[in-house]
């Protein structure tokens, strides 16, 4: 996956470049908003990591200009401004994720993986958690190597949860993903799908966080 890193702090850019390259990402770095827009005018990037405090223009303006050009390029905002206002603003402007500085490298990598799986640029279409494997390309699920059959909607719900393993997905979030695939969603549909999924999957694979949502832990054995 090719990532455009827009960050004016050279030391941070360098360190990020080092760790991200090692994880197999291809990094291009620019230190100004205008340069970022120039680089993005050619569609050869898969993702943008954007710092908001740029020397020549506000990072949010870069994001706005990018979205104005009807680009759906995933954007992760990286910023020292951690107030909820700028977080909401960033997400409103169409950022895909938001990480306040100082962020955890593992956290950034996890979020990059989520986006990578979603846009399908992952080297493998296989998401594997414990003994459950989900093939996003073939639409198949294996438990301990045995193929299991799921309905289309059940598969989608499981995909949403496994893509973002370790993070809680609210009922509304899962519903909105189903909507994105053009599916009709009934009020209690998510609960029904989860109920069916749980019967087929290993015990406690899908966790319910009462009052918040559902999640698949990164690794149960942990």
């Amino acid at each position, binding site marked *: 996956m090719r990532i455009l890193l827009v960050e004016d702090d050279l030391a941070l850019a360098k360190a990020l470049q080092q760790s991200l390259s090692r994880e197999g990402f291809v990094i291009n770095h620019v230190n100004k908003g205008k340069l970022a827009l120039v680089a993005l005018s050619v569609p050869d990037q898969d993702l943008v990591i954007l710092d908001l405090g740029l020397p020549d223009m506000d990072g949010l303006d870069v994001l706005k200009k990018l979205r104005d050009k009807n680009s759906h390029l995933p954007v992760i905002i990286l910023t*020292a401004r951690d107030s909820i*206002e700028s977080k909401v603003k960033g*997400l409103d402007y169409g950022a895909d994720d938001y990480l306040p500085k*100082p962020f955890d*490298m*593992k956290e950034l990598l996890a979020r990059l993986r989520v986006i990578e799986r979603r846009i399908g640029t992952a080297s493998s279409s296989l998401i594997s958690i414990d003994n459950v494997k989900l093939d996003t390309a073939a639409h198949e699920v294996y438990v301990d190597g045995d193929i299991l059959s799921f309905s289309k909607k059940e598969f989608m719900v499981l995909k949403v949860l496994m893509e*973002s393993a370790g993070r809680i997905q609210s009922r509304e979030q899962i519903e909105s993903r189903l909507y994105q695939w053009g599916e009709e969603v009934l009020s209690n549909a998510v609960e029904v799908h989860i109920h069916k999924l749980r019967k087929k999957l290993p015990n406690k694979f899908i966790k319910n*966080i*009462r009052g918040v949502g559902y999640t698949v832990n990164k690794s149960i054995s942990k």
Partner: protein
Amino acid sequence: MSIRRYLVLNLFAALTLITFVAAIQGYKHSMTRASKQFDQQLVALAQTLTVINLNTKNDKNNKNNPKVLQHESSFAFQIFQEGELVLRSKNAPDSAMNHSFAIDTEIIGFLDGNFLGQRWRVYSFVDLIKKTSSVEKIIIVAQPLQKRFVFAQDVILSAVTPMIIAIGILSLLIYIIITRGLRPLRQLTKELVIRKANDFTPLKLKAKNSELESVIATLNQLFSRLNSAFERERHFASDAAHELKTPLSVLKVNAYNIQHDLTHILNYENDSVNQLVLSVDRMSHVIDQILNLNRTNPEQLVIDSKVVNINYLLQNVIRDLYDEISDREQTIELESEDIYLMAHEFSLQLMLQNLIGNASKYTPNGGYIKARTYISENHDLKLIVEDSGNGIAPEEYQRVFDRFYRVGGDRHNSTVIGCGLGLAIVKHIVLLHGASIELSKSTKLQGLKVTVMFPKSLMNAASNKTIPSPPEVMKNV
């Protein structure tokens, strides 16, 4: 006491007092003048009476039978000739009027005496009929003193009456003038009273008088200086945030890289690097908390409240903290429904982060955390966060809200990242919202139970505003 009241009352009192003293002085003065006048009249009358020719020789037989003159004047008179009363006015007694009982002798000249039930002013005068003659005629005239008082009172009353009316008019004028004169001051006071504590915009008052003009100018100058000081203070937090957080990120990423290279490439476990990573984490936590403490300081924060759904905030906070919670194999449960209140979203979220973060931090692995909200019987919103940790001893309940105070002091378990600011921040935010906080032991989970009570006014204010459409689902998939 207001300046206006003070001025009006005191001026009125002074005016009345001085007028009264002046009236008394006037009365005394009029009295002396009147006495002099009346005395002169008495003298004149006595002298006039000398010309009356009394043929006493023909009236020898009438020796003890003086002539009585009928007249309608207040004056009384007696004429004695050779010791005999020969003529008297109707209102005069038979005995000599100039007889002073005090010294039991007859006095020539002026004298105040009592007879016929009145007090009189008496004047006696000896008239020698001829210079050579030894025949003496004593003329005594008298006038009731009452007459003089009445006259003096008349004089003073006619002088004082217009003054009393003048006092009335003057008081009214003083009241009006003072009220008008103090109007700009009153406007200034009003403007300052309704002003919010954190409003530093210049006063819009236009002063017409030079004294207030300089007061307002000075105040405005002060406001603008305060304003820029507060702005600087506010900006300091965000500037410091940016200046500290970026280098910290560099530290963190580099520490991660070193750790990764050592373990994955060189297969070398090095505790110093692990300690470095931990210390960087700890430092970023402390910096975050110090900035948050500064940012939520009730004196600093300009609170711009908006309608907030506490359930939505709680879900978000739990989602953000879930990584830590699942790492520690803790179970968290939220029992809440959509409750809207007027609140400062950022600080409220920060408070929930600190409360739930603390619950997770101080609860052993595999423990339970429960957060719930409900509307209590007296319509307050209650937020309860409880855990199955070790809790806090009741005697420490008060102190845990102090800055940098940590339960157990230096013996504190250093594996838990913390700096003792979390609950101080929570306290700030509780104060900001006019809420109250209470610590107790959880009966269900045996750990700490934190109860925050938000006044019902916050919910009422929110329900008066239109409830916003459900917030867009966060796209953090």
